[in-house]
């Protein structure tokens, strides 16, 4: 039973990550490879705020959100000078640089040794202890994110992003500023990614940089490419599918030494197959270009 609750929590975390990346990829049409970096910054920021400044969970999440937003804001300026291949490379560069900082700035992050003993959240005097309580907490955050994002997805701002995605020059000729709209999306996406980061850190109570690598960014991208993007159901479907898949594989009884490789092979095949036959993913609106 606890196993199923654990899966549910991971699904919720990945739905949050997918819905935020969706703003940049699905609505904005920009392929960002640094989403895992924002996820990681959120995790580390919340952890460090809680451990070093003794703030409780909710204020830590808030500080972490603001901090990640500022980083995303600063990174936007160089990144948004580019589109297409160079944009992907620049975001990849950010991912690698941020990972290097998390891994090598040992005095701050303890690098590869990781940070153990992260306290479970205490919300308004209520201490979360069991996994079922954690699931409720994650669900509450997920609902909040839904309530926040759904109006944005169905707004003039959402239409503006899509127009810029379809044809940036034409959209600008109709009065839309690509830089301003993309900047907003990028900052929002990065900031929102910090929330699942905060949840993850306090859930597994131990973090190290290996959870926030380029492979993680590729995994999150795969969720959107397979599930679909540009709408609400694509990212949700993708997150559920991609989290459940390795668990389903587990039941095939693969020896644990090769299981990660088999998983990766399946991810790679999924990418190729979807690009061939269904570039909009299962339920998405945006076709990768």
């Amino acid at each position, binding site marked *: 039973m606890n196993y199923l609750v654990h899966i549910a929590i991971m699904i919720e975390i990945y739905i949050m990550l997918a819905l935020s990346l969706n703003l940049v990829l699905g609505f904005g049409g920009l392929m960002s490879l640094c989403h895992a970096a924002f996820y990681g910054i959120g995790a580390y920021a919340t952890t460090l705020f809680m451990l070093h400044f003794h703030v409780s969970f909710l204020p830590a999440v808030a500080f972490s959100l603001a901090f990640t937003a500022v980083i995303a804001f600063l990174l936007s300026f160089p990144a948004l000078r580019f589109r297409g291949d160079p944009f992907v490379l620049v975001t990849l560069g950010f991912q690698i640089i941020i990972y290097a900082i998390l891994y090598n700035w040992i005095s701050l992050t303890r690098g590869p040794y990781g940070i153990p003993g992260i306290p479970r959240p205490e919300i308004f005097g209520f201490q979360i202890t069991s996994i079922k309580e954690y699931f409720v907490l994650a669900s509450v955050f997920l609902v909040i994110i839904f309530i926040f994002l759904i109006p944005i997805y169905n*707004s*003039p701002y959402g239409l503006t992003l899509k127009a810029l995605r379809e044809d940036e020059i034409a959209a600008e000729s109709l009065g*839309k500023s690509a830089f301003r709209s993309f900047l907003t999306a990028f900052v929002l996406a990065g900031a929102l990614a910090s929330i699942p980061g905060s949840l993850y850190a306090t859930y597994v109570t131990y973090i190290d940089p290996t959870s926030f690598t380029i492979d993680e960014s590729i995994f999150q991208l795969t969720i959107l490419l397979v599930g679909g993007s540009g709408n609400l159901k694509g990212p949700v479907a993708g997150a559920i599918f991609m989290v459940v898949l390795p668990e389903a594989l587990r039941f095939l009884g693969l020896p644990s030494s090769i299981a990660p490789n088999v998983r990766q092979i399946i991810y790679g095949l999924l990418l190729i197959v979807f690009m061939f036959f269904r570039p909009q993913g299962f339920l998405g609106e945006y076709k990768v270009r």
Partner: protein
Amino acid sequence: MMNDGLMIKGLSKSFNGFFAVKEVTAIFLPGRISALIGPNGAGKTTLFHLITGELKPDKGKIIYKGDDITGLPPWKIAKKKIGRLFQDVRIFKNMTVLENVVCSLFSSKEESLFFSFYPKKRRVMDIAFEKAKDLLSLVGLRKEENRRAGELSFGQQKLLAIARLLALGAQVLLLDEPTAGLSVSMRERLLELLKRIVAEDNKKIIVVVEHNMSVVLNIAHWVYFMNEGKISFFGRADHVLGAKEVRELYLGLSA
């Protein structure tokens, strides 16, 4: 009256020594349709690029309604209600026909992230969708409103692009070869629409780049003839097109 016009003074643009636009001075008056004609490569599209901010001029000024708009980026030019039809149309292919028009109807404030949370949002969007439907009816595309815009024919896409410009509230419409690739009936529809636009609002300015002389004679009041980056001839449509020199130059070059 002069103050409401679009004026370009001494506009020049060169690329690596090649002068695409050379000391061009022209004025486009409201309530009129002006035409920009000339052989391919004469610099007409470049001139449009300079006005809309795609390119920055090396020299010269662009003044609209008394404001100097030289060198502003394209989105700011569009905010001043100067709109453009591209040669390759450029509608938003994966959005519906209706969405294409609707997204031009919102003000800057309404397009901001924060507006997504205003209680008024739903109402504003509903009104916008209704207005968009009216505009589609105006250009005759109402029946296609839920189709994916990429599925429209080339002519229909052009009409959609014009509907977008009307949605923008464009007071200046710069149309690059609006009738190219259209069937005769589509062309008629388009030209009637253009004439209606300036008739109903005598503050609107329409400038067309055209290769079809019968179209020019049909709708244009004033014609500029551009060749090798310079304006070599201008005047009333029938005068310019009747002039022996223009006919020789134009027909000679395209022969």
